[in-house]
């Protein structure tokens, strides 16, 4: 290879990388909208979603070669629409349906002219309780965020064939069982919103739990979750809990730079707070303030308020632990899950001492004995009580149970000390 070739190849790689980044943004911004619009047009989420997924694959191939077109969203919409028509043509029995759809003027009225953001009804449909939680997450990642099945499989630690099957089943069920794609009104609304917010929060936390990955891996999924939390909060400004989740993710995101340094996890107390993103913290506080004005408390706002307490401090030493513990006690009224109770013990240890906290940790033994962080927290309490050998044994158990490289190295460092 001579120098000119090398330069050309290098420029090709740079162009491919640049279009990958742009493509990722375009896909996230557009895919949910196109899936929603096509579903309205075709009357089938299954068909709409497959057509958009194919269009994304074509775009990756073509844009890397010849660059991103001037109107990438329009390009994707047109490609997805053509794919849908091709799929319909292959199915003889849909000929009548096709005749109805192929009218280009009709297509134009369905795509691109709607003012309302149709992604929200689609998102609420994907998070219907009649769809299993695993499938809610997988379908949301694909239909709303435009992730490929392979990306979802990596992010959720599931085999690709399992993810593919979950998505197909969920899409077919939406069609066959008559699951409406809409934001429910009345008493169902709060319960459904909570599922949506749970899916977004799981999406965020999955990004940190890649088995074999290090702490900096898959930042994109966390970014996607923050983006989706913004979309939901922006579209539903009167829903306090939607603001609460956005605020929580903003605080988490703000600390990301300090949480993972060179692929190593650093505990909250040891983080270099100058690495926290002040702009995101300020935004998190503003969003939480806006949520509080709606006067509809809930678990996501309380989680965010706890995160805000940590973000208020200059170093680990001036945390207002009494305030944190009070917020956890309020949170228990909404969420008595063992994980929340375990997290509360950390604040309890600071206020009432390690012995009281250890008793509460031990009360959770049965529920959390297979969970590595239960052992890690128990080790911490034992160490504070001077029971070093027992603490070491718990750290080793936590080490055995954790699948994440960065968390494992953090625990290894502690055992070595």
């Amino acid at each position, binding site marked *: 290879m001579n120098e000119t070739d090398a330069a050309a190849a290098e420029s090709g790689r740079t162009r491919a990388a640049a279009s990958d980044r742009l493509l990722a943004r375009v896909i996230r911004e557009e895919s949910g909208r196109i899936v929603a619009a096509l579903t309205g047009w075709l009357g089938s989420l299954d068909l709409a979603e497959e057509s958009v997924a194919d269009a994304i694959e074509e775009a990756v191939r073509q844009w890397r070669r010849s660059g991103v077109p001037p109107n990438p969203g329009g390009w994707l919409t047109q490609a997805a629409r053509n794919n849908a028509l091709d799929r319909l043509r292959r199915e003889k*029995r849909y000929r009548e349906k096709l005749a109805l759809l192929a009218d280009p003027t009709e297509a134009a009225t369905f795509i691109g002219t709607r003012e309302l953001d149709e992604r929200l009804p689609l998102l609420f449909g994907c998070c219907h309780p*009649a769809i299993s939680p695993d499938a809610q997450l997988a379908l949301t990642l694909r239909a709303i965020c435009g992730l490929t099945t392979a990306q979802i499989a990596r992010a959720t630690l599931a085999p690709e064939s399992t993810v593919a099957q979950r998505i197909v089943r969920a899409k077919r069920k939406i*069609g066959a069982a*008559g699951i*409406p794609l809409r934001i429910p009104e009345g008493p169902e609304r709060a319960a459904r919103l909570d599922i949506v917010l749970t899916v977004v929060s799981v999406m965020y936390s999955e990004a940190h739990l890649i088995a074999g990955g290090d702490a900096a891996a898959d930042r994109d999924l966390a970014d996607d979750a923050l983006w989706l939390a913004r979309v939901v909060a922006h579209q539903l400004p009167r829903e306090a809990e939607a603001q609460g989740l956005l605020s929580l993710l903003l605080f988490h995101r703000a600390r990301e730079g300090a949480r993972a340094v060179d692929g190593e996890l650093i505990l909250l107390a040891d983080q270099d707070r100058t690495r926290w993103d002040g702009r995101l913290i300020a935004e998190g506080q503003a969003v939480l303030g806006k949520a509080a004005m709606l006067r509809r408390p809930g678990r996501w706002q309380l989680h965010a308020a706890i995160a805000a307490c940590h973000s208020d401090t200059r170093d680990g030493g001036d945390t207002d632990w009494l305030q944190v513990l009070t917020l956890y006690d309020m949170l228990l009224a909404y969420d008595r899950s063992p994980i929340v109770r375990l997290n509360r013990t950390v604040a309890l240890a600071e206020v009432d001492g390690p012995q009281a906290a250890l008793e509460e940790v031990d009360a959770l033994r049965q529920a959390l004995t297979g969970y590595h962080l239960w052992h890690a927290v128990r080790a911490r309490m034992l160490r504070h009580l001077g029971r070093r050998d027992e603490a070491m044994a718990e750290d080793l158990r936590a080490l055995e149970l954790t699948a994440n490289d960065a968390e494992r190295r953090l625990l290894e460092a502690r055992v070595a000390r």
Partner: protein
Amino acid sequence: MSEYAILIYEDPAFYETMPPEGWGAVVEAHNEFTKGVVEHGGSITGGGALKPVTMALTIRGGTVTDGPFVESTESFLGYYTVEARDLDHAIELAKLAPATGGGVELRPLHDPSAGQL
């Protein structure tokens, strides 16, 4: 409107240990349900109450055996078919169905006249 089946699963012990006068309350609960479906904008297209599983027999590959096909604590004791706008509406109706100590399963009915898209 789509048609859904509401399959009612209950603990048969509840009925076995119930005094005879208890049946009045059961019939009343089902009458309430029938009225409730209409008040919630649906309609009932069919239904049936099944005798206890001890009365069941199963045929498999030409062989007749005593007892229900699936043994479990809760058994399939009755069903309704209802018309509803969509799954959310069907769930609203299903929540009204009496299913003491058990639950209900909702299944869309197969509509041979509609092509699946």
